[in-house]
Every structure is written in C-alpha cells, then in structure tokens.
C-alpha cells in the first residue's frame, strides 16, 4: 500500500511540477517560452564544466578498482571488521558504495546472486545500497558544476555519513532478518 502510494507520487511528480509551474506562471503573465529559453541556455555550460572534475574522480576510482588494491585494503582491515562482527562478505560493498554507484550496483547484484536474495548477506547488501549515496561522484559533479576546488570538510563529512549508514545497515539487517 505504502509502496503503491509512493510509486504513484513518483510517477505524477514531474508532470505535476511541469503543469503547475507553467500554468501558474501564465497566470502571473510570465512570458513562459522566452523565460524558459533564457534559463535553459546555461544547461550546456553547466554540463561541460563538470568534465574535468568527473574525469579526475572516475579515473582515480577506475585505476584503484582495476588494480585489485581494494582486495588488499579489505584484507588489511578485516581484523578490525571481524572484531566489530561485520560479515566479511559485505566488505566489498562497504568500500565500493562511496566510490562508485555502478560498481556498487555490480557488487550488490553479484553478492545477491551468490548468497541468494533471501539470505542475510543478500539482504544486508541490499540495505547497504540504499543507506547512502556515491559520495565521491556527488562531490565531483556538484562542486565541479560551479568550479569549486576547495571542498573544505565535505569529504570527511560525506565519508563519516557513509560509515554511519553502512554500519547501521549491517547491524539493523541482523535484527530485522
């Protein structure tokens, strides 16, 4: 029931926004077509401005992933995670989630298919996926679009939130499933 409602809202949100904005603007005597094109002309530059930031970030992440360095990292950290009773099978997901959305999607699908969709591990990685966002990608795109290079505490904040979300996902799954 809850899902059906949210799905319906999702499906009608964008049509509603478009009709609402254009309709209301007409009553305010806004020259809708002219104003639209005026705002829209920034779209190209915004997208292009992101390129250097996104290339820098995705190349670094791609190199790291392809090298197998992540397996070393997981091995190095496993004594600590074992102590925290974090299932070793979920570690690739934990490290991939902030780095790469597509990569995390792949890891998740792989783990679900290996361990089964109804297993604790399978469900845990599913919850981990939704617990947080791809921090590195979001920071590169959002700051890149306005050419900000000094990001201050953004990255540590994002990674702390990832850590909190992922740990909660792991422990809450143990309780729920």
């Amino acid at each position: 029931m809850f899902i059906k409602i949210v799905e319906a809202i999702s499906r009608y949100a964008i049509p509603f926004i478009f009709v609402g904005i254009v309709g209301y603007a007409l009553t305010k005597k806004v020259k809708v077509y002219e104003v639209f094109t005026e705002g829209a002309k920034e779209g190209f530059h915004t997208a292009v401005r992101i390129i250097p930031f996104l290339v820098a970030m995705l190349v670094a992440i791609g190199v790291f992933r392809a090298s197998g360095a992540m397996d070393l990292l997981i091995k190095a950290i496993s004594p600590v995670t074992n102590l925290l009773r974090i299932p070793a099978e979920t570690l690739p997901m934990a490290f991939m989630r902030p780095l790469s959305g597509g990569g995390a999607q792949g890891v998740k699908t792989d783990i679900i298919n290996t361990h089964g969709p109804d297993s604790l591990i399978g469900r845990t990685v599913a919850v981990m996926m939704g617990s947080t966002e791809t921090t590195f990608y979001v920071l590169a795109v959002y700051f890149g679009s306005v050419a900000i290079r000094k990001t201050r505490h953004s990255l540590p904040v994002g990674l702390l939130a990832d850590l909190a979300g992922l740990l909660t996902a792991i422990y809450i799954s143990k309780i729920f499933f």
Partner: protein
Amino acid sequence: MINIIWAVLILSGFIVGAINGNIQEVTDAAIANAETAVNIALGLIGIMTLWLGIMKVAEEAGIVKGLARLISPVTKKLFSDVPADHPARGAIVMNLAANILGLGNAATPLGLKAMQELQKLNNKKDTATDAMVMFLAINTSSVTLIPATTIGILSSAGGTNPTNIIGPTIIATTVSTAVAIIACKLLGKLPKYQLKHDEYSAK
C-alpha cells in the same frame, strides 16, 4: 583531504596493478573511465537544459521564492548563511524532494541549480561555503523512500519478499543523514575547515 585520497587512489592503483601483473588493465581502466566521465557529463546536457529552463519559469513566477519561504522554518537552522527567501533554498528543497521520491533524473539538475544559487552568495568562488557543505552532506547521505532498483534485483533473483528491505533502508539512511548533519556542524568548527572572515561573508 580530497587531494590525499585522490593521490592514494591513483598511486596505490598503479603500484598494486604493477605488482599484481595487471598493469595493462589498470591503464585501460584509466582511459575507459575518462571517456565514461565525459559521456556522463555530456549526457547531462539535455536534462540539465530542460530543468534549468523550467526552474527559470518557476523563479519568474515567484514559485521558487514562495517555496523557499514556506520551508524556511525547517531550513533556517541548516542553512543559516542563506537569506530566508533566497531561490537557493527553493532549489535545495526541490532537489531533496526529488531524491526522496527517487527521481534521479530530476534530482541532479535541481541540485546543480541549487549549487549555482549558492555560488551567487559566495565571495570566494573556488571555496565551498558552509551552506554548500551542509547541502552536500544531506545530499550524499541520501534519503530514499523506495530503493526501486534494488527491490527489482532482489525480486528477479527470486526473492520471496523483496520489499521488506524498505524499513531497514529508511532507518539506515536516516541515521546516515543525521550523522552527516551533526558531522557537518562539528567539523565546520575546526580551525582547519573554518573560513576566514575576509574570505567570505553571508550577504
């Protein structure tokens, strides 16, 4: 921090790749991902143009300001350096709403619009403001009601009740957002991350 992490990713990647004997794959990944990055950025042009156009119409009609004023009781504490009826607040709310509903296509352009508006308040154009850090803290910790893709994967793998991940997911993402907001406020107080006053002042 971002400089160090970037260097570590690059250096450890190439060094471990050389040791593991898959240096060719590492090099290929670098080139392939550079291309992917450009494709992602170029792929944004259409949707970006569309949303910036519609947002401009909303702005002219006074909708963005109205929205900003409407939710200012909630955003006042979080974005204290942004004036109450500034369009940035309207764009931030629309971005967060799109994220919550899982409208990925709309969320990014609205978020970038919010960044542009926040940048207008920024006196030091290459440095993030407090409001930007807070906005991205909330944004990267993601609040999604229905993880639709994941439910789809569980269900196609033969899961018996894939929607029961929704409850735990909402709890986990709420915790990550709460931690993001608290960490943002606390870390922002560290001398290392503070803005000097001559560098930046809220208008």
